[in-house]
């Protein structure tokens, strides 16, 4: 029980930055914007967060700095993509490469330096409870932050006016414009908010999950997998967060399995999560395949079981909207 709880705690820790970035990208994509710059963005904000917290000896200042950088990069993408009408995909991709190189270049002097990290938060009174104690009694702040962010995103998207507006601009910008919503401004706002969350994910890497800066930092590639998890999560914050934890779980189980099967080369376990993710994605979306639909038709009781399996992307994802052209 103790070991299981500790493993779970490890999954929460490893999954925290993935969850934060996934939520950020979910917000952005729900508004209809694709931010492809995640991977570079996470790296640059991780570097910035570590540099600021070392310089000022305050890790929370570092987190803020990381969020600022994330929002700034998303803002560049937002302004070029939304207001200047350029391809979000192309700009995002170039930003990824730019930010990655920028992070290694600017962060050179902080490489392999000791620095502060976010440490642990201890919640008094629950440390002795079985299972809950090892899991939540003393954890990194980013774990609490990520769990809170899941709730906050869900609540905002599905329980507030702002959330309705967010989904509206991603669903049909024309209709949203017709209802008096300032489509481009709303989109830019969620682009920035999503970017800030992605920046927080970067800070979570360099200040908590894999403390320190170096080349490689260890969070390389996380941005790409987050883009996949967003699709996996069907653009729903809770489902996407579960996807992020699921990925963290298979990554961690790789470490355990390595001890159990020492004859299998280590890289197999490092690479395995990626194909597993693809297979899971396929399994989640089988509902769309013709032969599955025929099968369900033959056995109607499967219909209820298959409900909610296949998901639709926001209808206007990646679509440009210019109110001056009118409807």
């Amino acid at each position, binding site marked *: 029980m103790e070991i299981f709880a500790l493993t779970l705690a490890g999954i929460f820790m490893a999954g925290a930055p993935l969850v934060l970035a996934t939520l950020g990208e979910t917000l952005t994509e729900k508004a209809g914007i694709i931010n492809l710059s995640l991977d570079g963005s996470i790296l640059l904000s991780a570097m910035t967060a570590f540099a600021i917290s070392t310089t000022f000896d305050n890790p929370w200042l570092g987190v803020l700095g990381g969020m600022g950088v994330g929002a700034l990069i998303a803002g560049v993408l937002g302004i070029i993509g939304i207001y200047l009408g350029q391809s979000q995909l192309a700009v995002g991709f170039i930003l990824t490469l730019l930010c990655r190189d920028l992070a290694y270049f600017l962060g050179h002097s902080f490489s392999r330096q000791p620095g502060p990290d976010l440490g642990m938060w201890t919640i008094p009174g629950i440390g002795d409870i079985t299972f809950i104690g090892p899991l939540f009694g003393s954890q990194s702040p980013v774990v609490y932050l990520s769990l809170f962010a899941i709730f906050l995103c869900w609540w905002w998207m599905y329980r507030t*006016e702002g959330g*309705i507006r967010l989904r509206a601009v991603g669903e049909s910008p024309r209709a949203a414009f017709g209802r*008096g919503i300032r489509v481009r401004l709303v989109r830019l706002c969620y682009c920035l908010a999503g970017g800030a969350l992605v920046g927080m994910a970067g800070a979570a890497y360099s200040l908590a999950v894999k403390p320190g800066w170096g080349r490689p930092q260890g969070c390389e590639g996380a941005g790409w997998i987050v883009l996949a998890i967003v699709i996996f999560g069907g653009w729903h914050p809770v489902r996407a967060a579960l996807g992020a934890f699921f990925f963290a779980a298979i990554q961690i189980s790789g470490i355990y399995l390595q001890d159990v099967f020492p004859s299998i080369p280590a890289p197999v376990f490092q690479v395995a999560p990626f194909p597993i993710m693809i297979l899971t994605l396929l399994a989640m979306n089988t509902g769309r395949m013709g032969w599955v639909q025929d099968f369900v038709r033959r056995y109607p009781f499967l219909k209820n079981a298959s409900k909610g399996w296949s998901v639709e992307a926001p209808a206007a994802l990646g679509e440009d909207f210019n109110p001056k052209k009118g409807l």
Partner: protein
Amino acid sequence: MIVLKDIHKHYGRVRANDGISLTLEPGHIYALVGENGAGKSTLMRVLAGHTRPTSGQIGINDKTISHLTPKLARKYGVGMLYQDPLDFPAMPIWENFQLGAPKRTKREVIDILGELSYRLDACFLPDETVSSLTVGERQLLELLRLLDLGATTLILDEPTTGITPEQKQDLFNLLMKLAREENHTIILVTHKLSEALEMADSILIMRQGALVSTLTPPYDENELVSLMFGEAAKGVVSELPEIPSPAPPPRLRMNDALFAGPKYSMGSLNFTARPGECIGLAGLDGSGQELFLRGLCGLDRMPGGTLELNGKTFRSNDFNVLRRAGVHFVPADRLGMALFPALSLMEHITLTFPDHNDDLGEFYKSQCVERFNLRADPDTQADELSGGNQQRLLLSLIPDNASLLLMEYPTRGLDAGSSRQVWNHLKDRCAKGASLIFFSPDLDDVLEHSHRIIVFYDRAIAAVVDRKDATMDVIGALMAGKTLAEIKEGQQ
């Protein structure tokens, strides 16, 4: 009172609105009539604040402004209902209703929606998504929303496309009530004269971007027609071709076919079409007619049953196999599904008729210009063509030996002259032995141009009606879910 003064709206060289002035008074029902492309919708979008005019002035309640925004329009009580409802299909009904309104809780929204729909004899389940509604219900929801926002000037753009005649009557009664009892201004945008004659206190006629005339009752129908269509009114629509007797062997036979689309499936389809026959499909949006056409041409799957074409049996419906067998599909979304928007006319011809690569210029001239009257430069890109020319190009790409033509809404977006040309061409093909199966949301078209009509209801064939029995009332009732037996009973 709303006064539009000298409104111009230009798209590049196209003058969609060319100096339009008109006055709208409260409590009146106006009908804005004109052909497709006359500029009616553009003018109304200007009035609803969805499009900014190139120049001109709008006077509302003694204030004069250069243009409206959606927000301002709402403030002045102007609301517009689009032909394709401008809503959010993936989102719940109550959210669609609330969006754009002042802040309210979900409970309040549901109460207001319930009360409004009770008053208008409608019923909405607030947590269902809008995609589960029919087009008619979506329009009604939009109408409720506009009324809730306090709209006193209601613009309805072709509101009767895709709803049953019965629903149309309900809508018109409601509009009449709003105008007479609550002093609302109603503007009905339509290309159907019968609707204008039935409803309007005055009829505004637009042609080629200009307001040519304003008529008040009593109306002279002939005058209206000539004002609306000009010279084009004088064309002749050819008669439906005779089906040879004794009847030749069937062109198409469906044996217990099962079609499966992404959203639903339709089984036990048995139907036979003869050569030379024009078959119209009628049904509300999503009733099955779309799947019927897409399944027949192989765009949606056929997991069960067989198709027989000219005596040859097909167990599966592969698109390319069927195409080689002479089945050709023309979708309603011409640019999106059938043409290459960025390729020129000539390139389309080159791609489709590789055999003619030696004498392309000659072939183009005989095929497009002479046969189809396609008057455009061969280097024009497909997306720069008018709707009529796009349809002409598409039809000219279908080889002469096509034996089964499947068409979705053949006259979508076409003006009267082009529509007539398209119908004459299709009938000509049928007279030469092809079979035509087409769908149109315009019931008049279906009634006029079919030997037989298949009516769809609730994702199944409700009835197959012969030309001699087909009236607007019968087809409308079948579309709304009545059975033939019930209709006969009602008539007695």
